């Protein structure tokens, strides 16, 4: 009997364990490793923050949000992230279009440049913005003389957020655009449709979920941004203080419970969005 079992699938048992047992062990060893890894490295820290923030009820959250500038920080983060997401939704889609459909010298270079924010430290992005738009710089000085301050205002925050999240929509839309058969658009053109109608009726419906997914990803990314914003915003309570910097301040003030409470709020908004994004992406892939 065992001899037959051992001949299953033409596999002989190697080593001293019967084949099935070895397979099962391997199976569970891998799964166990994955679970322990993610459990220790992801679930544990998140649980720690959640517990710290809300372990004693809503007190910490109430105290944190009662501080001057707390709600303003949340509002500012939401508003600037929305603006950046909106801007990049449009510009990102345009860039994807340009990179896929146009032919021009330097196209590969443009593609590479677009991906720079994926690689460059956000702190360096902040420094770049300071170097270019700070009061003592070429562009910033010019505007300063006109009475328009760029850095240390919400404008600088939006600029920073747009920069660090620039590639996200592009890379979400680009692959989908690439898959699109231009034949449909050409057919529409032959039938007399202008480029705008073609885009509206044929292209956009096809890339819509990619644009949405990329935009949500951008928004989520912007919610948590600190490296560039902390340099260029001036962190003025109630004016240019964003939620992540507020959380950082609470942590430096050794109010970890309050920091955790606000962090949980931010995370909840962000996580829901990321979940939605992955669902949309997966539905898109399933439909493809």
């Amino acid at each position, binding site marked *: 009997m065992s001899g037959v079992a051992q001949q299953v699938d033409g596999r002989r048992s190697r*080593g001293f364990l019967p084949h099935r047992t070895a397979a099962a062990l*391997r199976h569970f*060893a*891998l799964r166990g*490793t994955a679970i322990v890894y993610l459990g220790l490295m992801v679930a544990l820290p998140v649980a720690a923050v959640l517990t710290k923030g809300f372990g004693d009820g809503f007190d910490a959250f109430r105290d944190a949000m*009662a*501080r*001057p*500038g707390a709600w303003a920080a949340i509002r500012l983060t939401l508003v600037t992230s929305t603006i950046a997401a909106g801007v990049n939704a449009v510009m990102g889609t345009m860039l994807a279009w340009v990179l896929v459909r146009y032919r021009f010298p330097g196209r590969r270079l443009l593609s590479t440049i677009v991906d720079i924010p994926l690689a460059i430290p956000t702190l360096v992005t902040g420094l770049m913005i300071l170097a270019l738009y*700070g*009061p003592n710089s070429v562009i910033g000085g010019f505007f300063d003389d006109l009475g328009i301050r760029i*850095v*240390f205002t919400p404008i600088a925050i939006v600029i920073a957020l747009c920069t660090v999240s620039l590639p996200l929509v592009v890379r979400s839309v680009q692959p989908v655009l690439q898959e699109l058969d231009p034949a449909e658009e050409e057919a529409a053109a032959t039938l007399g449709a202008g480029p705008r109608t073609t885009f509206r009726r044929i292209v956009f419906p096809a890339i819509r979920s990619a644009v949405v997914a990329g935009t949500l990803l951008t928004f989520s990314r912007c919610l948590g941004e600190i490296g560039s914003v902390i340099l260029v915003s*001036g*962190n*003025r*309570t*109630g*004016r240019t203080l964003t939620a992540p910097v507020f959380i950082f*301040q609470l942590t*430096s*003030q*050794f*109010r970890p419970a309050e920091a955790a409470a606000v962090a949980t709020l931010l995370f909840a908004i962000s996580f829901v969005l990321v979940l939605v994004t992955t669902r949309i992406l997966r539905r898109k892939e399933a439909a493809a």
Partner: protein
Amino acid sequence: MPRWVYSRLGPALFVAIAIVATACSSSSSNASGGGNCDPSASPKFINFVAYSTPREVYDAKILPAFVKLWKTEHDQTIQFTESYAGSTTQAQNVVNGQPADVVALSLAPDVQTIQDAGLITHDWTQAPDGGMVSSSVVVFDVKPGNPKGLKDWNDLTKDGVQVLTPDPAQSGGARWNLISLWGSALRGDVPGIAKGDEAAATTLMQGVTKNVIAYDKSARDSIQNFESGNGDVAITYENEVKTAQAAGGDDTAVYPKGSILIENPVAVVDKNAQKDCVEDIANAFVDYLHTKEAKAYYTETGFLRSTDPKLAAAGDPANGYPAIKDLFTIQDLGGWDALDQKLFSDNGIATQAIAQGG
């Protein structure tokens, strides 16, 4: 080689060992026990944790001088690890486990915090000058020419005046600033405020915090925020302005009539120093800070008025330390405990003023 070495288990173990090895090697080289206690260890590390403003005097002058001195006297190589941030943040960090053998903080209560946590077990105030190594006064850092004509605390409550001062929950300098405001008002130094009128002093404080545009995380951050072009005035240490001027800035100091005598303590964190086996060196270092040589370093970087209040008040006008008309000490205001309770507790006047100022 057994099969499992080639399977995932082998590399997983290898990586795990690598990580643990790195962690262990770094913690021993972090001078938290272990390596430092080896008599043949060279260099011996001393962890120096300080507030944000004196980095120029310690990093460039005092620490190297002491390292050289120690080498000459004991033929032993020592090295300081340095960390600079807001005084209160640093105190809390040390309580929470940051390696620190010697702390140089902005004000005594921050050292007290570390003592209360059980890390300092000796009476550090028995050192010369009560444990204080440097002193300064509170000034207003304004733009060249003082365009808004700010002379005293009441000017800071005017409409349209944008004030910068650090966050009292993180920075020692922030507390000194508010204490100076409070003391000046109560002692009748501020125009329009009667002596001893606490209600008026409270209103004054609220008026100033209303005009604060940013509470930065340390005194250094605050003055740099001002230098970036934000705000009309930064309330700061006299020595911070001098440091900025030495670095080429156009910071201009305005001296209000009254000021608190800012005194900065240094103490050995003996529990840590014992664990790191550097207690003798740490003690020698703190002793050194009270010597004439060290005092010279402090003075030339703008730090040391004098720990004698009368001398501090007289200043040294010829050398850039104007006389202070009314210099008062923490003792004059009733001592740290009473003052901390009154101003910085959860219901404290300053805490409330900041919360309302928004």
